[in-house]
Every structure is written in structure tokens, then in C-alpha cells.
């Protein structure tokens, strides 16, 4: 699916004293199968952008086109396009309402009109996708699960709809490091398998560095940078100007460099950083 965002502006509570511009003239194009990270300070417009892409908000000005159709319209055509997009909100476990995990995950596919016979199969597949065994969890009451398990059930509810575009808004907030790695690993694998478009919104630049090939940096509702992950996240000055601090690997490399080590500073993954430091170590004579 081709997502085109043209001069998109969105103002919350316009013409009241509470008016707040969340997005200000955003132009973007997201192509099918891209892995995009959206980063920015709290309040920079990340979540609003996600909701605009999913057609849940009507723009104040400008437009969002999904394969050429205006995203938020109440027409059958726009609705059909929206159904191809899966959006997991921040803290998706708050949206759980059903009596069993099976029914909860089946809500989305059911609304899409998936045949009853296939729903159970889809639910089982989605639960496995998020790392929950269907045999143990399908008949349990979602409210009795742990926070991390509820999160995964909620995400399974989106995954079960098999979207062509998956938007994850802070999917790992509140999960422990292991749960985080596991979840992102699964999302990564799933994206590779299906070739869907993945849009990851996160405060954790390290997560974005691992999953995204393209990063969009938002600041005050505007696109401050848009480019290959290494270029955007490796530029600590750019990040600082948008109110973010550099990813840990970049910060470490910069510290080494200012201490006189011959290292490059735009590496984002720990294994790359380790190799770079090892090389520099040898150059310095290994002492």
C-alpha cells in the first residue's frame, strides 16, 4: 500500500483556548514493504501521525491518501483501505473487553468478516505470533493475565487481522528487556515473512535502530529529518536539536572519539560497535 501524506496539519480543539497544533504541514510518502521508525520528543506529533495514517482523525488541512483514497472518509472505499492497516495504540491492553482470550483476539477478524471456520485458526496463529501458547491461553480470562501477557493478547488482536501496514505505537513500553527483545524479534520475523509495511513509533532509539531502515524524526509537529536509519540516528547533533539524546552506541563512540580513539560514530548496533572498538584497539597497539 502506498501512503501519501500531503501538507498534513492537525490542530486539537481548534478555536478554543486549548488549541494545540500537533502536526504542521507534514509531507511524507511511505512505500509498500518499508520499515519505518518514527521518533521524536513527547508531544512531537508521533501518535497523531499514526492515527491520521489509520484514518481515525480528520485532518485540519492537507490529506492522507491510502493507495489514492482519502483515509478518513466515511465511504466504503475508504473503509476498505483502512481495513488494510493495523494500528496498535500505546498500552493496547487497555482496550481488552472480552471474556476469553480467544474472543478478544477474534474481535478484529470477526469485524473484517472472516469466515467463522477460519477465525479460530487465525486466532491460534496470532497468539503463537506474539509468543503465547494457544492451548494454554485461548480459554483464559484476559483480565486475569499479567500485564505483559495482556499486552501480547492485545497485539495478537491486531496481528490476527493480518494487516498490510502495521503501525505499532510504543509497543514495548512497560515490558521488561527480555519481553521487549522477544516481541520485536517476532515483529521483525513477521515483517520479513510477509513483506508488510512496518511503522514503529518508539522512544527507544535502540529499538528503532534494530528494526527500521528509514527513520522519520518529528519535532514540534514537523518533519525535522527523514532518511536512512544510520544517517538520522547516527547524527547526535540533529537528534539533540529535536530534543532527543543520542542512542547509547553513538554516545559511547563519540566519547571514545573525543578521547582520541580512531572510531567512526554512526554505528547503531552493539555488535557493530564492539567490532569497531576492537579494530581501534588493534590500531592503537592493543594496550
Amino acid at each position, binding site marked *: 500500500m502506498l501512503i501519501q501524506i500531503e501538507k498534513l496539519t492537525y490542530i*486539537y*480543539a*481548534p*478555536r*478554543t*483556548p*486549548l488549541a494545540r497544533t500537533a502536526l504542521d504541514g507534514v509531507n511524507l510518502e511511505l512505500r509498500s514493504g518499508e520499515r519505518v521508525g518514527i521518533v521524536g520528543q513527547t508531544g512531537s506529533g508521533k501518535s497523531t501521525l499514526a*492515527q491520521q495514517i*489509520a484514518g*481515525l482523525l480528520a485532518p485540519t488541512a492537507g490529506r492522507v491518501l491510502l493507495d489514492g483514497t482519502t483515509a478518513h472518509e*466515511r465511504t466504503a472505499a475508504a473503509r476498505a483501505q483502512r*481495513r488494510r*492497516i*493495523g*494500528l496498535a*495504540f500505546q498500552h*493496547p491492553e*487497555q*482496550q*481488552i*473487553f472480552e471474556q476469553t482470550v480467544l474472543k478478544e483476539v477474534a*474481535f*478484529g477478524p470477526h*469485524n*473484517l468478516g472472516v469466515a467463522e471456520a477460519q477465525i479460530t485458526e487465525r486466532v491460534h496463529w496470532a497468539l503463537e505470533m506474539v509468543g503465547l501458547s494457544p492451548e494454554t491461553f485461548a480459554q483464559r480470562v484476559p*483480565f486475569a493475565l499479567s500485564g505483559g501477557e495482556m499486552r501480547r493478547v492485545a497485539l495478537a*488482536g*491486531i496481528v490476527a*487481522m493480518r494487516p498490510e501496514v502495521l503501525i505499532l505505537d510504543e509497543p514495548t513500553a512497560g515490558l521488561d528487556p527480555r519481553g521487549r527483545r522477544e516481541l520485536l524479534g517476532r515483529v521483525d520475523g513477521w515483517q520479513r515473512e510477509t513483506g508488510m509495511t512496518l511503522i514503529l513509533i518508539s522512544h527507544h532509539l535502540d529499538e528503532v535502530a534494530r528494526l527500521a531502515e528509514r527513520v522519520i524524526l518529528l519535532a514540534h509537529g514537523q518533519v525535522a529529518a527523514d532518511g536512512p536509519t544510520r544517517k538520522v540516528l547516527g547524527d547526535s547533533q540533529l537528534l539533540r536539536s529535536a530534543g532527543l539524546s543520542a542512542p547509547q552506541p553513538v554516545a559511547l563512540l563519540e566519547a571514545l572519539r573525543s578521547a582520541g580513539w580512531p572510531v567512526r560514530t554512526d554505528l547503531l548496533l552493539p555488535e557493530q560497535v564492539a567490532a569497531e572498538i576492537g579494530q581501534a584497539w588493534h590500531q592503537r597497539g592493543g594496550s
Partner: protein
Amino acid sequence: MNLLLPGMYVAADSPLHRLDPRIKMGATLGLMVLAFAVHSLPGLLLLAALVAGVALLARAPIPALLRTTRTVFWLALVMFFFYFFTTPGRPLVSWGGISVTAEGLGLGATQVYRICLLVILASLLTYTTSPTQLAHGMEALFGPLERIRFPVREIALVLTIALRFVPTFFAEIEIISKAQQARGADFYSGGPLRRLRSLVPIFVPIFVSALRRAEDLATAMDARGFRSAPHRTRLYRLSLGWNDLVACLAVAAASLLILGLERWI
């Protein structure tokens, strides 16, 4: 969230924001009573002008303020038809034993007008008065009831907390309903029963989170050593200024003027 929600406080600065909460609450109550004491069309229009004047002084957005009356749309509709069909008088149309009268039309419209005025007045009060101030005002106004062992402070606290969470609650409904829409939920089609059922995915999560919030709040209050003590000291004490006196006199004078004009006309 394109509307001013009923019960929402906006921390702005206006002559009304600066008034003592006791005066504002008293004046609001007075104007509400006035809305029911006035009967003639000129009187009702004058009252609307007075409320509009107050809204301007509060620097409140008038269209948003008018939209707060949406919340009582169904109540107003029921009221209207109740008066419309049950008021005796000159029949306009008679049909199968039920007659619709001109008096019914007038009275129905007047009642709807009054309800809307009440909502607007209440919205103006909460728009210009922070929940804490409201609670302090309430405590002061109902203070005498403590003599008969009425738990004034506790009830003021409960009301403050309830008011405090009204906007949070609406914001939450908005988020959850969007989240369910993203899962293909449809709140707009089908018959009334189907539409009602389609709201379950919104209300269950809202209810769950309200309970969780209440528990968290109780724990937080407990952790700060809150208990229902008879005499609590305060950071900000209420004091009346000359502006409060002016406001008091202005509202009283305007009310008397409207009542007087109505008699006289």
C-alpha cells in the same frame, strides 16, 4: 476533542477566573433560580444576554460553550415533548384524543431553553473555577451543615475528585473508541440494539480503567497520609476582594432589573 467538555476547567486569566469561588457559586445558583423565575419572552432574552455577557467576561469561546448543551439533548427532547403534549390550552391540532396546544409549544420551548441555560451556567462555573477552588467554595457554603454532623468535607472531596476525572474520562472514551475502530468496530450502523451492543467494547475497558484508577488514587492518598481529619489547614485561603463585591452587586442588580422589567412589561 473539538469541543469544550462540560465540567472542563481552563486555567486562563479573566475577571471571572479571579473571582472568589464562593461568590461564583452563589451567583451561578442565583442565576439558575432566576432562569426559572423569569417567564416572559423579553425576560428570557434579557437573561440570555446577561449570561452571554458573563461568558464574554470569562473569555470563554461562545460556540464551544453552546455546544456543551449537546450533553442534555435527549433530556431536553423528552422534556419538550412532555410539555408539548400535556399542557392544556388552545388546541392547534387534535388527533385521536391527544391535542397539541400553543401553550404546550411555548412551555416546552421555555423548559428546553432553561435546561440549556443551566448547562451553560454550570459549564461557565467549571470553566473558570479549578476543582480545588470549587471544593473549597463548596465546603465554605455548606459549612454550617457540619453542625448537624453532615460530612461536608468528605462530600466536597468526593465531588472534587469526580469533577477532576470528567475530562480524563472523556479523553479515555475517545482513545478506546478509536482503538476499537482501528480493529474494525462500527458504532454507526445497524438498529438501536446493535448499536448499543457495539458500545460494549468501549464501556468494559472504561469501567475496568475507572476501577483501577480509583484504587490507584486511594493508594496515592493513603501514601500521602490522607485521612478524614476534622481540621485541615490550607495553602491558599479564600479571601473576598473588592472585585467580588462588584460582581455580587452586578449580578444582584441585573437580576432585579430583569425581574422588575418583566413585571413592568
